[in-house]
């Protein structure tokens, strides 16, 4: 608990299908990771600013995800909902290394692992 916030490794690029997404729990928060067509990975809080729809289930078009519940469009880079809707989700910085690892930058230190998220098939 004494570590500062920083980058953590969350998986491999190949864990996410192109234009697909994966979810993960950190500090009680659900984060959605999206893989864009150019191989970039974007991370946002997995909650639509409209009515809390799970964004990870939405369709990815360019840098934008369409919320599956009422089709709000969220710009994954800024976290902002696009016109005509208004709202914003928290975004997280990500980095994909040459080796294909995905790193996520957290603002707060990890509080401990969430058992629900602890799958074992990814190193």
């Amino acid at each position, binding site marked *: 608990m004494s570590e500062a916030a920083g980058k953590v490794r*969350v998986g491999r690029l190949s864990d996410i299908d192109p234009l697909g997404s994966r979810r993960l729990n950190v500090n009680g928060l659900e984060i959605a990771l999206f893989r864009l067509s150019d191989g970039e990975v974007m991370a946002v809080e997995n909650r639509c600013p409209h009515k*809390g729809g*799970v964004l990870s289930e939405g369709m990815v078009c360019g840098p934008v995800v369409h919320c599956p519940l009422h089709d709000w469009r969220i710009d994954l880079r800024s976290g902002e909902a696009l016109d005509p809707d208004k709202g914003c989700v928290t975004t997280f910085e990500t980095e994909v290394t040459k080796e294909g690892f995905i790193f996520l930058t957290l603002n707060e230190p990890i509080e401990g692992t969430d058992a629900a998220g602890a*799958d074992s098939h990814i190193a």
Partner: protein
Amino acid sequence: MTNKRKKLVLVGNGMAGVRTIEHLLKLAPDLYDITIFGAEPHPNYNRIMLSTVLAGGTSMEEIVINDLDWYRENGITLHMGQAVQKIDSEQRRVYAEGGIEAEYDELIMATGSNAFMLPIPGADKEGVIGFRDIKDCVAMQEASRKHRKAAVIGGGLLGLEAARGLLNLGMDVTVIHINEYLMERQLDRPASLMLQKELEAQGMKFLLKKQTESVLGKQRAKGLLFKDGSMLEADLVVMAVGIRPNVALAQRSGLAVERGVVVDDHMRTNLPGVYAVGECAQHRGIAYGLVAPLYEQGAVLAKGLAGIPVEGYAGSVTSTKLKVSGVDVFSGGIFVEPEGARALRYQDEIEGVYKKLVILDNKLIGAVLFGETGEGAALFSLIKSGESVAGREKELLLGLSADALASGGGGGGAARLEAMAADEIVCGCNGVSKGDIVAAIDGGCNSLGQIKGCTKASASCGGCKPLVEGLLQIYAGDAAVTVKEGICGCTTHSRDEIVAEIKRMGLKTVKEVMNVLEWNNDEGCSKCRPSLNYYLGMLWPAEYKDEKESRFTNERYHANIQKDGTYSVIPRIYGGVTSPTELKRIAEVAEKFEVPLVKFTGGQRLDLLGVKKEDLPGVWEALDMPSGHGYGKALRTVKTCVGSTFCRFGTQDAMGMGVRLEKAFERMNAPAKVKLAVSGCPRNCAEATVKDFGVVAVDGGWELHVGGNAGIHVRATDLLGFVKTDDEVEEWASAFLQYYRENATWNERTAPWVERVGLEHVKQVLSDEDERKALHARLRDTLDRTVDPWKQIVSEPELRKNFERLPAPQSQSASVQVETKKEESA
């Protein structure tokens, strides 16, 4: 060459000034060498949209009207962040802060206004700001990150828009207003009370009839003290009590200044070669604070500078719209009835609608609308035209739609648009006149989208959309009618064109279609991508690889998403006929996975609702039943009644036929969902006559019904025909479904499709035996290639992984190769 040009200097790089320059460049591109000084460190941006930026709907970049390229391309010298300090009207020179000077032959003052800051003790503390420019907007955004409580002083348009933005930023917002009701300069009392109620419901708090005495706090604002001795906690104070024309420079420079810089009808000041436009100018005693009149002033000045004879500016009637989401308020003209005027009112407290029209000498002189503002633009145009509304008053008050007003439905609509003068402003936000729109139409624009693109009309608040549409109808005539809307905003191609091109060029992926047909949005949207995916799959059943990333959630994860992110699971139960063993298994699975709700559906199936995404593959595995496709644009259910098997009236085996059809067509993708039913006699207990394809048994055969729908718009089926044998039922059903698959637009159910192409046409195609058999064969071929999606996902780890969460990262010390930012202090 260049030394022949005259020198024009603009002081104030804002909306009115730059608009004047834009206009001038159109009229006389080579007449002047232009230099612009702007105090703000930004190119000209849309100040109106600051409210939207604050509310979180738009980024700062998006509100730029003229980017730096625009200045460059037009050869304009721009000095950003350079306030002009001094004007020497003898030498005709201006001097700016940073030491830059410029000579002028003509000078335009367009310095706008400043937010008026109440001269009360503490007004200079940190955390006390106005709401005028990007800087203020940023200050509010920053404050919202560190502080909770905001006070907005002023319950007018600006104050309420600021308050709404701060609410969106998560702050606790109280609006303080000196008057007893809000927006008293635009609204009458009833409308204002309705507005207050609505805003309170959105979470805004109000302190009315309160006068602020001072701002409390040491260095930073901590709260407000009012005249009556009460206090309010606040760490951000936004003053939105009014604006003051920014005239300091003008005063220093010898210009005649009253409230604003005094100008005549040609925007001339008292000094030779010096003009003023915008909020800093005072014309016939009025300094305006809205864009539309300023743009009218700009147009007059631009013509004057271009040497075109122009009738002077005669002042404007103004209208306003509150840009707060969820609240529709419109106000225009004189809304408090003067002596001799009549007012008509309509109020519906339940629906939250209020309308008031003020009429003087049979002319509409003002209007207030709350709740329903669609007619605002049309009414405003009536106010400006000053035509008689005698005999039409009630019609205007009681819900004659804006469309009707604009398109002539209500007498005078089209005529009025036609009679409208060319330079009358239609879009107030962007200052687009009727003439601009008609010119755009003449130049080839024939859809609302195109007009919006080339004139910006209706691109901001959208209030004038009905008028623009009306003009389009009148001036584009048939061209407007024949303009084809693309299948979505990403393309102008219609469904039929796209399908034809895919066939002609043999396009095989969604990406390829979007590239070749020049989509204007690289990766499409949630409308075109699924439709292209459907068309490609329908056209190339053998080669096309379904792109799951272009399918909606439900079709991607093969279950129906619920509002809380869980899914529902409907296994296939052919014809609704089940068995005790199957029921027991379903029950066990529901218990094992703690499914919150089990329900019989309207389609005779069992629905397990509330299954967690990560449990879906496990549930499917345990059920060991095929997917019921209760989530897809696909064959859903075939409902049956008991039929002759048990029923005393039954004439045929309805259950048997239902099961047969469901087995024949399961997994069939279609433009929209498809539902079938089979009833054992004309009593029709399976409701076959509201299905996409309904079969009703009669003595000696089967009636075939098509194009029914029991959903949003109920439509009873049309009778397609009568057949004798079971095989014929399947063949006709198959041919009908395939013909629909090949010809309907994505998302079009059979009911509207049959109406569109006509029953007779469908009948004609299907009665041709060769054609019918060919259609049947094509569908068979397609379906034989499909597999059950649940089984596939359960057995393929690459697909199954998408249902699981990634493991939560371990705390840093435990994870490999992490870079940590060491805390500064221990």
